[in-house]
């Protein structure tokens, strides 16, 4: 076992690779909570064309995760005092189990049993489809979701990132049990999984328990990837206006980043540390930005940085009617982003970030989630937090300077 310790954070963790290729992360914490994440390194980013010559449709990762952790399994675990949830992002799928009892490993075992088996039929897929169509139709008539969805489409030419995280009502109808089983056989295997466990226990004892678990077999399948040709220097559409069904107008402003490999060439692993405070410093907690937006009679209602494959983009959603005034302001604001974050604001934010990281690390429940979220970038959360805390203001400003060159789109969903 390899021990990593970023002293100031007071949260050492242990990493071990099992013979079957499974990566195990063990994080001892003083708490009554015991949590684990079974992490699958495949999310909704639909870059798979076919598996074993069978077509794979968008939304397969999302459907499969919800069919594996269905209500029956959730309730069975809950009866034993274990809370089970699943999160499906574009980059990964994470099944999280938490309890205050002594049965965490039994719960992991039960979940792995379900992951290893394919005991579901088209009927179960249809049942989930019936429910999920309602979710999709609701999303499609929601002006906020609509503006985000069309902004992703406006940002990209060819990348699966244009389709967002959840399947739309048309995609939902194309998902079938046979394809899900192929998807499961290909991706739900130890070499593409990780297990993260956190509890008040010695790491050696935890790894002994992990070794007793029964994992699925590693199977090598013929995986055919889509040809993704994406020009990251421009967007597919700069502005789009559509009529919504709601009583308020919303617009989403998208900022498209260069391809991940190009940013990595320029900044190395530090790019991920810059991503950490970026949204808060530039938008969400930037008082000058927020009050200027308010002056345009608009309100920032959400701001996120989304990453998948080679893509990354910022999605800012506003409520308001004067889209032109906000777009003009955004153009001006982003013409010199390095001037928008003062050194004192940066320092004070980093202290807050540190405090927040300490809170995340305190609880097994949040620490397993944080580790799972940082795995797609091959960084342990403690490393990410420790480097972010030590980040140099001038280097961060250099990264901000780059932002002015990133292409942008805006989608306005007008009120009915």
């Amino acid at each position, binding site marked *: 076992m390899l021990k990593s310790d970023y002293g*100031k954070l*007071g949260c050492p963790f242990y990493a071990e690779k099992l013979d079957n290729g499974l990566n195990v992360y063990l994080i001892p*914490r*003083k*708490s*009554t*909570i015991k949590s684990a994440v079974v992490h699958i390194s495949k999310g909704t980013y639909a870059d798979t064309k076919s598996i074993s010559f069978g077509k794979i449709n968008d939304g397969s990762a999302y459907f499969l995760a919800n069919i594996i952790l269905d209500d029956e399994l959730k*309730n069975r675990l*809950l*009866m034993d*005092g274990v*809370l089970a949830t699943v999160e499906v992002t574009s980059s990964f799928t994470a099944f999280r189990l*938490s*309890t*205050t*009892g002594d049965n965490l490993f039994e719960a992991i075992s039960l979940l792995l049993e379900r992951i290893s088996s394919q005991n579901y039929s088209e009927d179960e897929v249809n049942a989930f489809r019936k429910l999920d169509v309602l979710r999709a139709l609701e999303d499609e008539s929601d002006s906020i979701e609509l503006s985000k969805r069309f902004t992703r489409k406006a940002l990209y030419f060819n990348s699966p990132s244009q389709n967002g995280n959840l399947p739309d009502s048309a995609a939902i109808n194309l998902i079938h049990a046979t394809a899900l089983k192929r998807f499961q056989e290909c991706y739900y295997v130890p070499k593409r999984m990780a297990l993260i466990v956190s509890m008040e226990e010695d790491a050696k004892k935890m790894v002994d328990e992990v070794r007793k678990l029964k994992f699925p077999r590693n199977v090598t399948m013929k995986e055919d990837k889509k040809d993704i040709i994406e020009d990251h220097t421009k967007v597919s559409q700069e502005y789009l206006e559509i009529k919504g069904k709601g009583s308020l107008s919303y617009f989403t402003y998208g900022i498209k980043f260069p391809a991940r490999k190009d940013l990595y060439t320029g900044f190395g692993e530090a790019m991920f540390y810059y991503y950490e405070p970026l949204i808060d410093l530039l938008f969400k907690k930037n008082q000058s930005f927020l009050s200027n937006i308010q002056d345009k009679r608009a309100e920032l209602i959400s701001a996120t940085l989304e990453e998948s494959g080679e893509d990354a983009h910022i999605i800012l959603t506003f409520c308001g009617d004067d889209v032109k005034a906000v777009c003009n302001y955004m153009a001006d604001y982003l013409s010199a982003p390095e001037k928008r974050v003062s050194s004192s604001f940066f320092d*004070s934010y980093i*202290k*807050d970030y*540190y*405090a*927040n990281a*300490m*809170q*995340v*690390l*305190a*609880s097994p*429940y949040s620490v397993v989630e944080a580790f799972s979220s940082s795995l797609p970038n091959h960084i342990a959360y403690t490393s990410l937090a420790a480097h972010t805390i030590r980040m140099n203001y001038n280097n961060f400003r250099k990264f901000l300077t780059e932002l002015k060159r990133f292409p942008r789109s805006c989608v306005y969903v007008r009120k009915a």
Partner: protein
Amino acid sequence: MILYSENYGERIVIVRRYLKDACPSNCLVLASLLNVSMKTKEVTKMLKGGHIFFRTYCLKGGYVLETKISQPKTKGLVFVLSDPYKKATEYVFDLDSSVLKTDEHSLAIAKENALSRISADIHSDLGLDFASPVIDIDALKNAMIEDIVKLMDEFSKSEIGDVLYLGPSEKKDPLYGKDIFSKKISELESESIKSGTDAAKVIVLTGDKVNDYDSYLLFKQAIMCVSKKIEKLIDSTYDFEYRIEDGILDDSHGYIIVSSNDSNLPLIEKAVSRLSVTDEDYVASLLAYNRIELNICLSPDKAVEEALKLLSLGIDSKDELFKVKECDKEKVVKLAVALSHSKEVL
């Protein structure tokens, strides 16, 4: 009450000041103005990763002004609470009207924030504990700064209140010996629910007096058991939308609120009249109970909410709050049966 737990990585101190008689609109403006008054560079700088927040709600027939200060436990940073609560006492314990911003602009912002956060719901209509007070919007808009300052002074002088610490164990007393209230809120009599509303049927259940944490948990799950049975009865007979929730009213009463369109209320009453709890209803209550108890262990907000309920009842859960405690199935069903027989539909 002091509750030690490493689960949340933060220290939380809550001080509740109680007044039996106050203008509810002014209470809302006061809490809002206190939040506005704390937004100064000086306070922000001192708090760093911490937060201070004020709110007001109904409790035991009166009003509470609650101050909550929270701070992540970190190493190497000087926070307001890191020197065990010396500076925090200024904000939390020795609070008086001198901290209030009394200019017109701050008062206007406070009123605007209070108006946008009015969350009166069925709990308010029923006057339940922890509900937002029912307010007169015109009175809120016309609130005068002199009255708000006066109300703050009244809250400051109140000798009824309580204090909660929730967070990692400390070598010293985490409350710094500041037991400033001569009378605890738990010593006050609770208010009973007098009637339902046009949009809800309220079922009041009466049981034996809850006097410790174990009997509190048993009471809680037994109420859930009755609630789940009512849900089952409605679902098996009717096809309309409704909302059901349950809770503990005081140390010997529980409530179940079923809200729906007024035309459905007689049907709800009819379903409730057929109420009869059996062993089979236990499973549904166990799922609900485990979900709620686990969330208390996982979320600091839920833990605080539960700790405040216990504090109001005068029950000290000690560290048991942070581990899901199972209740005996037979006892749960037996109590649920007894509660169902005691039901009073309002």
